[in-house]
């Protein structure tokens, strides 16, 4: 009895020891910055040239400044628009591709090759990718000269001064960069579904479309939620692509200015007060939206097991 007990304690000890690296890394790189960000948001603290102003405690003044500024909501809207524009095609193509890749009846050849190719854009640095697009779509860039020489356009189209072409380019780049990643995730989800279900369905005479909508999608829900929430968080933190594409201005008329780009502009003067407050607001928004997505997605499934319990 005694021996057994001591063994349990020893195992526990190892469990804690193995947890230490994570806890330490989390504390140093996530938790402490989180707390100091919130702490900083209550101070006036910036640099005017080479002179440091503050830190002076000013309570909620930074939040007041930010929340009373209608621009903040405009930037949130921009961010969401560009995220949705990129996410919709992303999820569509990822679902399609992963359904094809995991369908044994299609017997696709050279799958490894294609999986690698669709994942490749994700390996390029976002800033390099953005720079490339900036050059491609500049007023006298290759895209314009091709369109003009083919006679499709009479004169070069100014991609960078039109609201929707800029937003569209940002969304397109995010789509290209991330659909491979999403495809891999969804494939993992689909391969985790019991093949017996597919067989049973086809034996019962279900078509491929029916199988997809009635079996694959519902069973994929947990992975879909995961993909959606991670993509949402990533989308809210969208920065490098629009920053490089618009030279940090978010032009035309700041219609491509995202929340993090706005944050970045405050960090220019080391304005940790406003920057901190903006980060906290972003944190709250992200939390709320994630919760919303989570609720919406589970709303359907929640009721089913309950009903079964009542039966």
């Amino acid at each position, binding site marked *: 009895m005694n021996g057994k007990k001591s063994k349990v304690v020893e195992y526990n000890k190892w469990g804690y020891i193995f947890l230490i690296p994570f806890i330490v890394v989390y504390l140093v790189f996530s938790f402490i910055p989180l707390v100091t960000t919130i702490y900083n948001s209550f101070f006036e603290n910036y640099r005017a040239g080479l002179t440091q102003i503050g830190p002076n405690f000013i309570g909620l003044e930074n939040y007041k400044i930010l929340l009373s500024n209608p621009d903040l909501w405009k930037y949130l809207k921009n961010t969401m628009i560009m995220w949705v524009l990129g996410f919709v095609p992303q999820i569509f193509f990822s679902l399609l591709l992963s359904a094809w890749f995991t369908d044994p009846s299609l017997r696709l050849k050279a799958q490894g090759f294609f999986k690698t190719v669709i994942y490749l854009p994700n390996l390029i640095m976002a800033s390099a990718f953005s720079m490339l697009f900036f050059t491609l779509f500049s007023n006298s860039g290759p895209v314009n000269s091709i369109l003009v020489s083919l006679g499709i356009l009479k004169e070069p189209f*100014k991609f960078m001064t039109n609201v929707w072409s800029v937003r569209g380019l940002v969304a397109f780049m995010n789509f290209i960069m991330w659909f491979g990643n999403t495809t891999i995730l969804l494939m993992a989800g689909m391969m985790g579904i019991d093949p017996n279900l597919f067989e049973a369905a086809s034996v019962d005479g279900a078509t491929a479309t029916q199988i997809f909508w009635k079996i694959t999608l519902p069973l994929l829900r947990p992975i879909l939620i995961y993909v959606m929430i991670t993509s949402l968080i990533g989308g809210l933190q969208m920065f490098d692509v629009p920053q490089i594409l618009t030279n940090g201005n978010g032009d035309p008329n700041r219609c491509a200015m995202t929340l993090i780009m706005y944050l970045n*502009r405050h960090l220019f*003067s080391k304005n940790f007060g*406003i920057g901190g407050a903006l980060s906290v607001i972003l944190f709250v928004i992200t939390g709320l939206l994630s919760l919303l997505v989570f609720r919406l997605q589970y709303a359907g499934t929640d009721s089913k097991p309950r009903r079964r319990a009542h039966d």
Partner: protein
Amino acid sequence: MKKRMLSILLSSVLAASVLAGCGGGSGSQQAAEPAKEEEAAEEEAAEEPAADAEGGEGKVFNIYCWNEEFKSRLTDHYPGYQEVDATHGKIGDVDVVWNITPNQDNAYQNNLDQKLLAQADAPADEKIDLFLVEADYAIKYVDTDYTLPIADLGITDADLSKQFQYTKDTVTDSNGVLKGVSWQGCPGVLIYNREAAKEIFGTDDQAAIQEKVKDWDTFIATAKEVAAAGYKMTAGPDDYYRVFDFNKEGRSVQDGKIVIDPSIEKWIEVSKELYDAKAIGSASLWDEDWNKGFYPEGKVFCYFGPAWLIDFSMKAEDEKSIAAQGGWAATAGPQGFAWGGTWITAAAGTDNPSLIKDIILKLTTDDEIMKDIVVKDNDFVNNKPVMEAMAQDQSYSNKVLGGQNPLGMFCEGAENIAELKITAYDQTFTEQIQAAMKNYFEGNATLDEAKEAFFKAVVEKHPELSY
């Protein structure tokens, strides 16, 4: 087993490289130690040390700047400078370390601020010794204790007597102390494309073209003529921004308030008209489209700029460019102006004052070296007698300008520069107004919206300002 061996190998390589990284640093430091004293003695013998009783001069000379211009001046014209690699050089025993951060979006200033604020606590070999400042923000550094008075280096007013007065006024702090020295003067001219001039006006003669651009109304009329011939008058509205900026009535920030000067309003007005008439391009300064005008197929009629623009930006090194074929010519343009300029400043806390003194004296006061700079780089140097002599010199001609000698024009321009109306905020002001007004020119915003956006953008960067 094989896998295990491999992992052991890999981890030992990793560990070794980490150790080597540390070891390398301390090793070279040790090696440098004994040489330090020797060199210090030598230098003291060679030239008087400016700072009193400084046990010897540093082994590492840190230079902070934003492009290759000063580096090439030092490489080509400073006696005894040897290039080691792209970011390192050697002057005697001293290792020169170049810290180059691009200027755009104030990146250079941010980096410099960070380093200067930490200067007091930095080890001697990591302290900034010399850094360069541009007119747009010179005052921000000059008016602090982070820069050393030039007199403290042992440089006298007599040494600098040949320099243009405005180059000294610009970097004199609020107590009247001179804090920087420049090797160049930056009077600007209008630089036009000879081929285009012949095609449109039938002549590339300077007097005839000057007649076409003598004031802004004529400039606008000419621009429309140029546009009708399939050219753009300038690559974009930013090109002649500096002319209006220079001719401002007052400074762009007064008592903490951002002011849009009437002259800047005039720039907006002229640009809107030209933009709507499609008489100018839509390039922003330094961007891809802006650079295309340096080639014949870019179809740009003219640029505005001082000597450094001709030398440094016009792609003369590329044989396909207009500059390489000598296809440009210079004329005074609608209004005189000056643009930019680079000043050498000594950072407080430097351990190489005598080296800084020597660099300043050689590059900014030595007649022979300055003449060489003009001949080799076509820069306009900050030395009145040399420039006046060379303006008369028939043997000097500027290849980019097709054999024209523009120095007389520059001399006249430099004489007329009374003062630069600068503030510490000019770079932000310039970058942001150009970006904001682009929305107005493009028709994406009204003038008031664009101004509002401009003010906001400046205040974001400088929360201490208001509008």
